[in-house]
């Protein structure tokens, strides 16, 4: 047994004047378990009423916080049983620590008291939360519209180099992941389409399926979702960190609008890059489908290309690009909104990032649904 594995022995002695003396001996370094206070309580209950609890520490070796906790429990026990607790019988250092732990002045006004809210209060608070969240989004959108107005008049305060930097971040740097995902989507659509269409001897229409699905829907929505997870999250984290380090307040104290300086360049970058990324995504997805069709489904490559060109009308193409650009604006706005709403601690940055991605993806999918209904109504 190593010397760090101690025993925490207790012996009890009842003295003539009704004082109950607790002898502590050996090392009190055990981190596995402390002597149960019930033993003391049981001993106290045995053999008549005790008037005081005192300690004998002559045999006490080394000790840690465990002993303090044990003594504090003894003190509580004494208080509940109205027995005198003789703290002076403890070694000075131990006595001081006990006194310190009990005498921490708690300033009622320096901390906000947490009350357990009632059900109705919870409902009310959530409703207020939803309302203020909605107002926050509305005012953020409003400020962005004002900023766009200022930009149109050439009065917006932002640096061109920030736009270029954001363009690099959300454009060229996203090419790899956009290519990979859309290539795979193209492959999958070709495979899935071929299984169904071949049964009707219409395998060649895989080209139409891949082309229309990617140009009209999958290209823009997948690119939107990828950028939401990649760039939207980055925007939220960047602005959130700036909020934590008071950089955003520093803009405000100079009378420079953070929306102008930080949000506008990011929106402009997204608007500039998204159509290009969508076009790229469409081409890559079609390439994916083409490879599957040519190599595994044995469709004539020339025919495949011909059918693809035939299937995609200018309207379909423009619809995809417009939707993609809209999704880009959504990604930039949700990322920046959550970043600007970020609290002032490190955990808040994480929450802002998560919230940016969740809000962004939800909005993209919901907006795509609205687009689908509108296109159906307009017969596009």
């Amino acid at each position, binding site marked *: 047994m190593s010397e760090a594995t101690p025993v925490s022995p207790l012996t009890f002695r009842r003295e003539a004047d009704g004082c109950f003396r607790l002898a502590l001996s050996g090392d009190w370094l055990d981190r596995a378990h402390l002597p149960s206070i019930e033993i003391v309580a049981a001993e106290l209950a045995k053999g008549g009423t005790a008037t005081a609890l005192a300690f004998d520490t002559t045999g006490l070796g080394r000790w840690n916080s465990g002993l303090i906790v044990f003594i504090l429990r003894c003190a509580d026990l004494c208080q509940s049983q109205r027995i005198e607790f003789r703290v002076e019988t403890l070694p000075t250092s131990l006595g001081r620590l006990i006194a310190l732990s009990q005498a921490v002045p708690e300033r009622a*006004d320096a901390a906000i008291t947490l009350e357990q809210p009632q059900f109705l209060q919870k409902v009310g608070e959530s409703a207020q939360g939803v309302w203020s969240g909605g107002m926050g989004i509305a005012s953020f959108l409003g400020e962005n519209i004002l900023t766009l107005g200022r930009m149109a008049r050439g009065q917006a305060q932002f640096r061109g180099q920030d736009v270029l930097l954001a363009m690099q971040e959300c454009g060229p740097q996203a090419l790899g992941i956009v290519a990979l995902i859309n290539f795979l989507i193209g492959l999958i659509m070709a495979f899935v389409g071929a299984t169904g269409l071949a049964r009707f001897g219409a395998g060649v229409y895989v080209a139409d399926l891949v082309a229309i699905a990617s140009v009209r829907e999958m290209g823009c929505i997948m690119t939107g979702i990828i950028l939401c997870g990649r760039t939207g999250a980055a925007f939220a984290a960047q602005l959130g960190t*700036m909020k934590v380090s008071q950089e955003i307040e520093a*803009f*405000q*104290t100079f009378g420079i609008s953070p929306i102008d300086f930080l949000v506008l360049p990011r929106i402009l970058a997204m608007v500039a890059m998204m159509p290009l990324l969508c076009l790229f995504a469409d081409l890559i997805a079609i390439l994916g489908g083409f490879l599957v069709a040519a190599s595994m489904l044995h469709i004539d490559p020339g025919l495949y290309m011909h059918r693809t060109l035939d299937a995609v009308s200018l309207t379909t193409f423009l619809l995809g690009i417009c939707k993609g650009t809209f999704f880009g604006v959504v990604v930039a706005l949700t990322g920046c909104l959550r970043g600007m709403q970020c609290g002032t601690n490190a955990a808040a940055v994480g929450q802002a990032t998560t919230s940016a991605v969740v809000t962004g993806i939800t909005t993209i999918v919901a907006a795509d649904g609205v687009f689908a209904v509108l296109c159906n109504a307009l017969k596009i």
Partner: protein
Amino acid sequence: MDSAAPNIRIEIRDLTMSYGSFVVMRDINARVKRGEVFIIMGGSGCGKSTLLREMIGLKEPTRGDIYYDGSPFWASPPEDRQKRLRSFGVLFQSGALWSSMTLAENVGLPLGEYTELPESDIAEIARLKLALVGLKGFEDYYPSQISGGMNKRAGLARALALDPDILFFDEPSAGLDPISSRNLDRLILELRDSLGATFVVVTHELASIFTIGDHAIFLDAGTRSVRAQGHPRELLLRSTDPVVREFLTRGDSVSQPVVPPPVI
């Protein structure tokens, strides 16, 4: 505005801030004279920083207003407030430099926004401001490449960029070693004497309070209002309020005043 007090630069009148029933500060009244170093002091959680945020336009008070040269700040239209902000310089607790820009760009950005100066002149002025705070040669460093004390000084250089009339400091000595802290105090005094600007400093560093303070208000965390005001040394020597005395003597002794450090 009292026409009898033309040298009053800032006047805080009945400033109250509350969130629902939670009162952060109540009926704060104070006057700051032109060219003095005004100290806002008090223990943690007494509303010092909130008061500063209201003074620099980051938080709107529930009631009351702050008058700069006699004109109300919060009651004026947003455009006037924006204009007023340009005559302020603010040094945040952490420096709050824009991390994606070099020190020279940090100092130059406000100049670029609000002046018609060509870039070469802006760079020149940025170099000058950085030299003023002892950061000559660090123009092309990013905030992450320099120490905390240097960040703070660079923040001061940025605060000085637009030649402000009023400089606000939020806990200037926080996180600085005693020597850097004393140097910053000296710099504040030098700037006060050479620029003639007015300074508002939030701090609870006693050494700073006695060294640089011309006038101080003590915010009380209990009553959430001004408990005492006056010259810090006068407060130390004359105040009979035990709470103020305890704060100014670091609680070492309620009856025996500590000897204030000599004026530099």
